[in-house]
C-alpha cells in the first residue's frame, strides 16, 4: 500500500463549456496529501470554474477526476463533502446569526432526546477550536466575530468533516497581516496532518510564503505545474499572462513617481478630523497633483479616515477646507459638490449597482449631481460612455451589459470611470487594485499616475506597500486608528522603512 504515490486529487483533461464560452479546455490539477498547492491564473483563466468542478458545483463536460487514486464522479457539493473535499470561500457562507458551535456542526449536530444536544455540540466545537489553538467563545453568534475569525470557523467546520482536501478560495483578501498569519498557522497544522491544501489567491507573496507547488492556468488551459522553490515571481507572472508580461513591466516602470511635486498651496486641508470608534482626530494636507498614500494594516483607520473626508460617515470633530474654503462634508453629496470623489474598497456593496448597465453605472454620480430634472442627453451619454470605456479599456466594451457580469478588474474600472467623469479635484481611492488580476492592476495604477500628472490630487489607500510607494509622493502611516507619521517619498524610503513605521513608528 503506497499512499504517498497516490495524489489526493488528480484532475486531467477537464473541459467545461458555458454558452458562448469554453471556460475550461483541458485543465488539470494534481494535489498531493500534505502539500499546500497554489492554483494561479488571471481573472478568467478558469480557476473558479476548476474549483467548482472539484467541489461539485459544476459538472464537467469531459475529463477525469480521481480522488486518492479512485476515479470519482462528483455529483454535487454534498457528494464532494462526502469525498472529503471541503471549501472555504472568500465570502464566508456561514450563518452569522447562529452561534460558532452551530456553524461548525451545522447539519451534523449531536442529537439527544429533545433534538439537538447543545451542550455536547458546544463541547465538541470548543474541543476543535482548542485543538487548533483558537481562542473562541463557541456560544457567541458568529456575526460578532471579524471576517477573519469567521473564515477560521469555516475551516474548523472542514476539520470536523475530516476533510482530506481543503480548498481555500481567496481566503485572505479581506484579512490584515496578523489575521493572514493566523490563517496560515492553521493551514500549516492541517498540512502536517496530511491534508492537501488548494490555495487560490491574487497575492503572489502569500503563495511563496505558504505553498510548495503551484499550478498555472491560462484561458482554460493548463500551463504547467511548478515548485515555488524553482520558479521566481517574475517568471510566474510571465506564465500567467503569456505574451502580455512584457507590457506589464513597461507599465510598471512608466508609473513610478520620483519625488514630491514642487511646493503648491494645499488643495485640501483637514484639521482635527475625527470620529470616536473610527479614527482619532487627524490632520491632512493634499496639494494639487499630489498623491498621498495611506499605509497601515487593515483596521488601522485608513478607510475610516477617507470616509470622514468624503462625508460617508459624519465627522464628530474637525474641519475640512478645499481651496481655503471651509466645507465640512456631512453627506457624500456635499463632498461631491466640493470636488471630492471616493471609490469605496467594497465595490460590490458600496460601489456598483450590479443590475444596472455599464453606462448607467458610469454616469450615476454625474446624473446624481445634475439632479433628476436634467437628464444627460442621449448624445452626451453615448459620447461620455464610449470615451471612458475606451480610455479605461473596459471589457467587454458593451455599454448596455449589466455591470455585475463583468470581471472584478473591469468592475473596478467602471467605478473608477464614474468618478473620472466627474473630473474631481481630489480623488480618494480605497484599495482600487484589490482582488483584480495583474494586468488590470497595472492599468489602474497607470490611470492613477495619469490623473496625478494632470493635476488631480489623489488619496491612495492600499494594503500593498509596493504599490503605495510606487504611486505616492507622500505616505501617511496609520496604526491603531491614528495617524502616526507622514513621510516624504524620497529615494531612501522603501517598504521596510514603511513597515517599521507601521509596526512601531510615532507615539505609542
Amino acid at each position, binding site marked *: 500500500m503506497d499512499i504517498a504515490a497516490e495524489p489526493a486529487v488528480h484532475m486531467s483533461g477537464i473541459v467545461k*463549456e*458555458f*454558452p*458562448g*464560452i469554453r*471556460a475550461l479546455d483541458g485543465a488539470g490539477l494534481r494535489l498531493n496529501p500534505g502539500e499546500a498547492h497554489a492554483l494561479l491564473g488571471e*481573472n*478568467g483563466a*478558469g*480557476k*473558479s*470554474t476548476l474549483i*467548482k468542478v472539484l467541489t461539485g*458545483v459544476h459538472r464537467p*463536460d469531459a475529463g477525469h477526476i480521481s480522488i486518492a487514486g479512485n476515479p470519482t464522479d462528483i455529483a454535487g457539493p454534498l457528494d464532494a463533502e462526502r469525498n472529503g473535499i471541503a471549501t472555504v470561500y*472568500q*465570502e464566508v457562507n456561514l450563518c452569522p446569526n447562529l452561534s460558532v458551535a452551530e456553524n461548525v456542526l451545522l447539519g451534523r449536530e449531536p442529537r439527544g432526546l429533545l433534538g439537538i444536544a447543545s451542550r455536547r455540540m458546544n463541547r465538541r466545537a470548543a474541543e476543535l477550536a482548542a485543538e487548533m489553538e483558537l481562542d473562541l467563545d463557541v456560544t457567541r453568534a458568529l456575526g460578532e466575530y471579524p471576517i477573519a475569525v469567521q473564515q477560521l470557523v469555516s475551516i474548523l467546520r472542514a476539520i470536523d468533516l475530516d476533510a482530506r482536501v481543503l480548498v481555500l478560495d*481567496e481566503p485572505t483578501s479581506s484579512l490584515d497581516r496578523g489575521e493572514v498569519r493566523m490563517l496560515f498557522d492553521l493551514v500549516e497544522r492541517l498540512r502536517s496532518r496530511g491534508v492537501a491544501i488548494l490555495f487560490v489567491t491574487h497575492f503572489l507573496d502569500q503563495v511563496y510564503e505558504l505553498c510548495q507547488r503551484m499550478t498555472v492556468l491560462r484561458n482554460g488551459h493548463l500551463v504547467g505545474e511548478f515548485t515555488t522553490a524553482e520558479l521566481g515571481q517574475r517568471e510566474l507572472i510571465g506564465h500567467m499572462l503569456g505574451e502580455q508580461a512584457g507590457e506589464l513591466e513597461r507599465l510598471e516602470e512608466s508609473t513610478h513617481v520620483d519625488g514630491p511635486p514642487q511646493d503648491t498651496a494645499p488643495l485640501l486641508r483637514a484639521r482635527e478630523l475625527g470620529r470616536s470608534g473610527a479614527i482619532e482626530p487627524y490632520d491632512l494636507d493634499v496639494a494639487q497633483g499630489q498623491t498621498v498614500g495611506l499605509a497601515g494594516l487593515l483596521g488601522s483607520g485608513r478607510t475610516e479616515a477617507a470616509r470622514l473626508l*468624503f462625508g*460617508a460617515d459624519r465627522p464628530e470633530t474637525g474641519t475640512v477646507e478645499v481651496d481655503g474654503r471651509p466645507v465640512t462634508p456631512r453627506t*457624500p*453629496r456635499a463632498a*461631491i459638490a466640493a470636488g471630492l470623489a*471616493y471609490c*469605496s474598497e467594497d465595490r*460590490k*456593496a*458600496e*460601489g*456598483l*449597482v*450590479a*443590475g*444596472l*448597465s455599464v453606462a*448607467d453605472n458610469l*454616469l*450615476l*454620480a454625474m446624473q*446624481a*449631481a*445634475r*439632479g*433628476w*430634472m*436634467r*437628464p*444627460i442627453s442621449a448624445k452626451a451619454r453615448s459620447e461620455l460612455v464610449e470615451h471612458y470605456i475606451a480610455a479605461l479599456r473596459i471589457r467587454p466594451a458593451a455599454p*448596455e*451589459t*449589466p455591470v*455585475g*457580469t*463583468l*470581471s*472584478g478588474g473591469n*468592475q473596478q474600472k467602471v467605478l473608477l470611470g*464614474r468618478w473620472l467623469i466627474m473630473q474631481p479635484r481630489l480623488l480618494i481611492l480605497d484599495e482600487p487594485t484589490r*482582488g483584480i*488580476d495583474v494586468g488590470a492592476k497595472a492599468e489602474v495604477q497607470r490611470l492613477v499616475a495619469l490623473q496625478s500628472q494632470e493635476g488631480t490630487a489623489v488619496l491612495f489607500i492600499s494594503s500593498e506597500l509596493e504599490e503605495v510607494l510606487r504611486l505616492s509622493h507622500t505616505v501617511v502611516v496609520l496604526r491603531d486608528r491614528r495617524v502616526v507619521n507622514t513621510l516624504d517619498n524620497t529615494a531612501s524610503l522603501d517598504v521596510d522603512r514603511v513597515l517599521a513605521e507601521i509596526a512601531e513608528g510615532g507615539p505609542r
Partner: protein
Amino acid sequence: MRAAQLRRLVWPLLVLAGLLVANLVATPGFFEVRIQGGRLYGSLIDILHFGAPLLLISLGMTLVIALRGIDLSVGAVVAVSGALACTIIASSADPGSVQTAAIAVAVALGASALLGLWNGFLVAVLQIQPIVATLILMVAGRGVAQLITGGQITTVNSEPYRQIAAGSLATVPVTVLLAAATVLLMWLLVRRTALGLLIEAIGGNAEAGRLAGIRATGLTVAAYTFCGLCAGLAGIIISANTGSADGNNAGLWIELDAILAVVIGGTLLTGGRFSIVGTVLGALIVQTLSTTVYTMGVPPESAQVFKALVVFLVCLLQSPRFRAQLVAPFRRGKTSHEPPAPSEPPPQDEESDVSPTGTSAGAPDRREVQR
C-alpha cells in the same frame, strides 16, 4: 438593452395572449366590441374598464417595489379616498353639481397623497421596514374610512361623480382614459427624466447610490406619495362605479393583486430595475384572469383556486430554471453532438461566482441580458 427589455416582456405578453385566446374559444363573441349610446362595450373593454383601478395602483406599486419597498396600505387608501369623496358629496348642499364633485375628488386625492407621504416618512426618514410601516396604515386606514362614513355604506346621487366611472370621451370610457393618461404621465416623468435611473440605482444598491450622491430620502418619499395618489384615484373610480363608499370592502386585497401584477410584469421584489410596460401587462393579466373566471363560468367556490393555478403557471414560465428544463429535451434533440444546455450562468466574474439571480417568483432571467 432594448432587445433584452423586449425579451423580458415576451412571457407576460404570451400569457396575456393565451388567456385572451382561451376566452375566445370558450366564448366566441369575446373579441366583439360594439358602440352603444356613444360608448364602447364588450368583454375587452370591460377588462380595460374594470382593470383601471388595479392598473393605477400597480403603477404606484412599481416605483415602491423598485425602491426595494412595498406598500400594503393601498387597499386602505382606496377605502379612505372613496369614503371621503362620497361623504363630502352626500353632506353637501348641492350634491348634484360639478363643483361639489370636483371638490370631493380634489380633497380625496389630496388626502391620499398625504397618506402616501406618511408612508414615505415612516420608511425613508424613520427607517421603518416598508412592510411594517405600511401595515400600520393598512390596518388604520380601514378604521379611518369607517369613521368617515360613520360605519355605513354611504351612497351618493351625483351625476358628475358617476360620470367618472360611467362616462366616456369619444366613445372611450373615462376610466380607461384616466389609466392611460397616468401611464403616459408616469412614463414621461420617470423615463424622460433621470428619475427612473436614480430610483433603480437606490433600489439596486442603496449604499452605492448614497455614495454616488443621490438623495434617497426625497426620492423614496416621492415614490410612496405617488403610490398613495394612484391608490386615491383608484378609490375614486371604484366608488364612482358603484355610486357608494364601502369602508370595509372597497379595494379589499387589491394590494396583493397589485404586487402580483408588478411581479408578473418582471420587476423584482428585491428592487432595482423596473418596467412600466411590464406592469401594465401584469395588471391586464390579473384583470383578464378575473374576467375569465366569470366568462368561463368557473363556479365561484373554485374561482380563487383557478386564479391561483394560472398565476402559478405564469410564475413557472418566468422561472429560468423551469424554462431551461422545459426546452432542454428539444435542444438536445436538435444538436445531439453538443453538450446539454447548462443551467448555470457563464463564469463571468471570477472572484465571486455567486450570481445575483433573483429568487422571487417573477424573477426575469438576468442571463438573457448577459448574452
